């Protein structure tokens, strides 16, 4: 099941009243949406407010989502409109449609390095998380580190990774899972300090 089908499944479950399915979509897209919004809105607290409003609007509009476009294209369009309305309400210049249309949103990849959209204390937390992830990555056995790098950074399929690493697909699946679980284990105390405050 591909990425778009996964989103469609989650949307359909949310449309049937499963709020947890919508939370899974939020977990998946909140950082991308935040990054997108931070192009128009510099203040981190405002970015969060607008992101939250966009997600709530998307949730309310779920019954009208028919799957004609990908979920994230639809979500980003809502995000941009929410940002425009917010900026207009604040008496600031809103982005024009040519500055950022939905097609661009679909392929949106910010070339910038990590851009903090956090308050100072949240920024500290963000740095701790990044440091933990990176340190754990460096400590991983090479085959686990290679597998998760090829998947998460290069975006390769299990089949392609299996070819590159010359091993069965099942081994790739296991290595990626073990890498993620090792990092997640190190992150849990950090995330647990403010349980579920950050996905």
């Amino acid at each position: 099941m591909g990425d778009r089908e996964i989103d469609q499944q989650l949307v359909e479950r949310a449309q049937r009243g499963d709020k947890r399915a919508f939370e899974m979509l939020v977990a998946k897209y909140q950082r991308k949406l935040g990054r997108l919004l931070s192009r128009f809105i510099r203040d981190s607290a405002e970015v969060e407010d607008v992101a939250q409003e966009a997600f709530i609007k998307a949730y309310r509009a779920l019954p009208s989502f028919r799957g004609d476009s990908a979920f994230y294209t639809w979500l980003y369009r809502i995000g941009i409109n929410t940002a425009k309305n917010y900026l207009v309400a604040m008496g600031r210049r809103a982005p024009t449609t040519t500055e950022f249309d939905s097609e661009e949103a679909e392929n949106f990849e910010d070339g910038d390095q990590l851009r903090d959209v956090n308050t100072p204390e949240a920024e500290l937390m963000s740095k701790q998380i990044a440091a933990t992830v990176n340190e754990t990555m460096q400590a991983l056995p090479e085959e686990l580190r290679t597998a998760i790098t090829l998947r998460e950074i290069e975006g390769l399929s299990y089949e392609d990774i299996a070819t590159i690493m010359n091993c069965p697909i099942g081994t790739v699946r296991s290595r990626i899972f073990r890498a993620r679980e090792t990092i997640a284990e190190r992150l849990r105390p950090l995330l647990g300090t403010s349980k579920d405050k950050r996905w």
Partner: protein
Amino acid sequence: MERISALMDGELDDGEAVQEFKRCGGDATLVEGWATYHLIGDVLRQEAALGTGFNDRLREALAAEPTVLAPRPRNLQRRARLFALSAAAGIAGVLAVGWLAYFNHPASLDAGAGQVAEADSSMNEYLVAHHEYADSASMPSVTPYVRYVNEIRREGAMSR
């Protein structure tokens, strides 16, 4: 949890994925794992995170929202099955009507009579003579002769 990892990579088949989504509906730890794995991926790709407390606030806001219940899209499979059944019934009806029409058609009756006449062709001359002299209540015409004459001619052609 390994299947959650494969699910987010789009590496489960449709059946497994649906099962996994069902499990997520009843198990918060799976959803937490899904969220943490996505966080790890985003950090590795150097994507900025939203601030502490974002999820708590969003969850509270979502909890305050009335649950959305969209009308379920019509089941395409069921519609396809119904269409196939009605199409099959239509075709069966056409075939039945065609079959009946074919076997009740005068031409097919003639064909059947032809077979009988062929089996009993030695009686043809007798039957012609009988029809010629037999008393008939209806108006005499050539029609009664047609079949027999026809059969005699066809037999003659075959014997040649």
